[in-house]
């Protein structure tokens, strides 16, 4: 089997069998790409995890692009990334065709009224897990607290400020604090 096809199929398999996304995918990617196919080393895998934390997008997609590119250039990157996304694309596309009618069935609508209550808990839990893993520097904690307060106020009062604006302000704050710290070092 040629390598491009192999990349595509391997990542399609990974995409098909990982639920929930995010870090749940790492063991499966590691098993396939490090242990079995030996496309990358364990150290490189750790490396991608670190890169993923600083770049946008799901870690699974980041891994697929990285491994695909290392193995077979741009073509490999495209094959692996499309492979990764294809199973969820097909499944969700099918669901989108009948979900509305499905939700008209009374007991299913009731089930979703229950499910709705779980989703907020899951999202809050994702934030709690991230806080636990975050280095507790005063600057980081202050930014998290301010972002939380700002986002709550924006949602409650329906202010037209998006989360992207908040992220840009946070980036700018990071740069200003860095400049001030550098200035102080210069003085000393």
């Amino acid at each position, binding site marked *: 089997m040629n390598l491009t096809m192999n990349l595509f199929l391997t990542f399609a398999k990974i995409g098909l069998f990982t*639920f*929930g*996304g*995010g*870090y749940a995918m790492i063991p499966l990617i590691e098993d396939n790409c490090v242990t079995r196919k030996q496309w990358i080393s364990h150290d490189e895998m750790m490396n991608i995890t670190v*890169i*993923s934390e*600083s*770049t*946008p*997008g*799901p*870690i699974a*997609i980041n891994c697929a*692009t*990285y491994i695909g590119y290392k193995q077979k250039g741009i073509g490999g990157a495209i094959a692996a*990334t499309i492979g990764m*996304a294809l*199973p*969820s694309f097909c*499944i*969700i*596309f099918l*669901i989108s*065709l009948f979900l509305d009618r499905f939700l008209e069935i009374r007991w299913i609508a*009731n*089930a*979703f009224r*229950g*499910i*709705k*209550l*779980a*989703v*907020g*808990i*899951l999202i*809050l*839990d*994702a*934030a709690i897990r*991230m806080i636990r893993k*975050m280095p507790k520097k005063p600057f*980081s904690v202050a*930014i*998290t607290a301010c*972002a*939380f307060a700002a*986002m*709550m106020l924006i*949602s409650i009062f329906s202010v037209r400020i*998006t*989360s992207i604006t*908040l*992220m840009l302000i*946070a*980036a700018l704050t*990071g*740069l200003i*604090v860095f400049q001030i710290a550098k200035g102080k070092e210069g003085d000393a």
Partner: protein
Amino acid sequence: MNLLNLLIGFLKVGLFAFGGGYAAVPLIRDVVLSYGWLDQDMLTNMIAVSESTPGPIMINLATYVGSTQGGIIGALIATLAVILPSFIMILIIVVLEKKLLKNPYIQAALSGVKPCVIGIIGATGMYMILQHVFTAFPGGTADAIALAVTAVLAVIYFGSRKITKKGISPVALIGIAALAGVLVYGIQ
């Protein structure tokens, strides 16, 4: 026009979805609510569906919104748009051998963005919970049934971690919530 909006909307999501997993939820919420593509209830339903089907949540949501707004073409555009920024970013980083990420200014900006994302996710989860347990939020009265079900779900989800190390999975919580919905709202 709608297709162009899908392209721009999901490029924005893809470009700012730092942190993976649920990190994209606040961004997608901003975009779909502002264009009126989904209402809050349908968005919450789809987050639960995305969690229960394979693949990254961000891709699942993009495919669903694209499909409901523009059929198969819409689904393709939204899904590719949400992947593209992270795809390009990883290629740039691989080619530059991570030099970009070691740049102190980029590090400084990221030191602000990362904790900000955590605050945004936390506030989104919290706001969704409040929206569901009050008849209207802000301003409504508490919905006793929703409040009770939410409390029970939270105790089950967080309490299960005291019993087994990993606790129950998000998919299991969604299953329990669905069952609770069928029982509680069915009997009513």
